[in-house]
């Protein structure tokens, strides 16, 4: 079994080998792309608005966490009756933060990050303040809108 062509010309086998390898490689890349994209979809824009119940029943000094699209939002009613809302996603490593009524601050359960009630990072590892979320009372309903 030897090549038919002269010795100095690339043989049929070489040509076929290169063609087959090239085709296989191309097919591999072409079929890998849809798989990769399938596995990592782009973010869904989701809802831009959410509600956190009736303002009347939302007692001062308490909090609620609601979903705005897929993202948790922390809504706090301060002692003076004002509402504040922040993305509940910690700026350190995306753990979900909570309001501590005892310490009058926002705390992260994962790495002990602490934020003030203005959302500013006070102590612990968080590098940035919490992202704020628009909150207003519309017809007696606490309404959140992405800022």
């Amino acid at each position, binding site marked *: 079994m030897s090549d038919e062509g002269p010795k100095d010309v690339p043989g049929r086998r070489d040509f076929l080998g290169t063609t087959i390898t090239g085709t296989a490689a191309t097919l591999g890349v072409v079929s890998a792309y849809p798989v990769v994209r399938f596995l*990592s979809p782009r973010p869904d824009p989701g809802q831009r608005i959410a509600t956190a119940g009736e303002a009347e029943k939302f007692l001062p000094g308490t909090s609620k966490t609601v979903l705005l699209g897929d993202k948790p939002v922390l809504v706090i009613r301060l002692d003076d009756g004002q509402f504040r809302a922040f993305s509940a996603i910690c700026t350190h490593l995306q753990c979900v933060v909570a309001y501590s009524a005892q310490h009058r601050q926002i705390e992260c359960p994962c790495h002990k990050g602490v934020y003030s009630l203005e959302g500013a990072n006070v102590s612990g590892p968080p590098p940035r303040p919490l992202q704020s979320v628009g909150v207003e009372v519309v017809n007696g309903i606490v309404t959140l809108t992405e800022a």
Partner: protein
Amino acid sequence: MLDDTRKWFSDRVGAPVLLEKLRERRVSGLSPTHFVGGVLLMLFLLEVASGILLMLPYRPDPQHAHASVVAIAGRLPYGSLVRGVHAWTSHMFVAMLFVQIATVLLNRVYREPKELVWWTGLLLLVTGVSMAFTGALLPWSQNAYLQARVSSEMIGQGPIFGPWLKRMLRGGDDITPWSLGHAYGFHTGVLPALATLLFGFHMAVVRRSSGGPVEGATVPVYPEFIVRLAAVCTAVLLLIVSLATFVPVAVGTPVNMAQSMAPAGGGTAPSDVLPPWYFLFLHDLLRAAPPRLLGVESAKFVLGALSVLALFAVALPFIDRKGSKITAYIGAVLIVVFLVLTGHAIL
């Protein structure tokens, strides 16, 4: 009668030939470290077997996942045992991987011609830890949910492929109900298949790279080595079954994405969310670090440092070529640091 049956089979299957081959093959000794690889294989097979059992009653969707795990642990006959074996074996598997890696590091057996043994070993470690992490999310408990958020975000902070890898693991930009399906698919399909391939390839290159008359390899694989390995495996199995029986594995409270850890209306400070023991050192480092280190966000800094360490591990066969033992000392220091930090975090 029994002998006749055995002969009938061995005539057709050729078992004695296989045993003869194992009789001819040699291992270099019978010290404890010689059995770690075999124990790891046994643990992996145990994970596959108990995992297949658990797949049957488990319901991989956010509506039913938690309830189905509660049912497995509480209502199904021996469900708690099967789940306990699966969970404890995973801890044992990661621990044994660490032991194996540490042994290889200290004995410097990653050098030529064992580079591929070392690299496939490192990949097995990554695969093993990934299996533990994807598995932890399956009960869809609040603690596992927060852990999954943090650990995938940590991967996202890694260089170059980080953000893409994070999105692929999460099945999107955030941990959503879709992420449970991703974790389940990776845990029961992708990762076990990968581990099987890696195990096969690893063992093949181990054989190849230690093929031929190795100096000092005098102990026959069969019966000396295999019989002792069977005894060691039985002891490990006994330990796992005892742990699964007497130390139940908590299921945790179900995920409520519209609620953080604090009870509704506040009142108490949020409780700690802790990773599995082998990541406690990282947890402590991340918690103790200031917001910024050398001008970089500390989480990015820690992950960057870990990436450099990983790169160092991969490049080790090229770095450590000559007779110098410096890398073994660095390895020893790293092992001590890991043990001290982990011990400190547990206590």
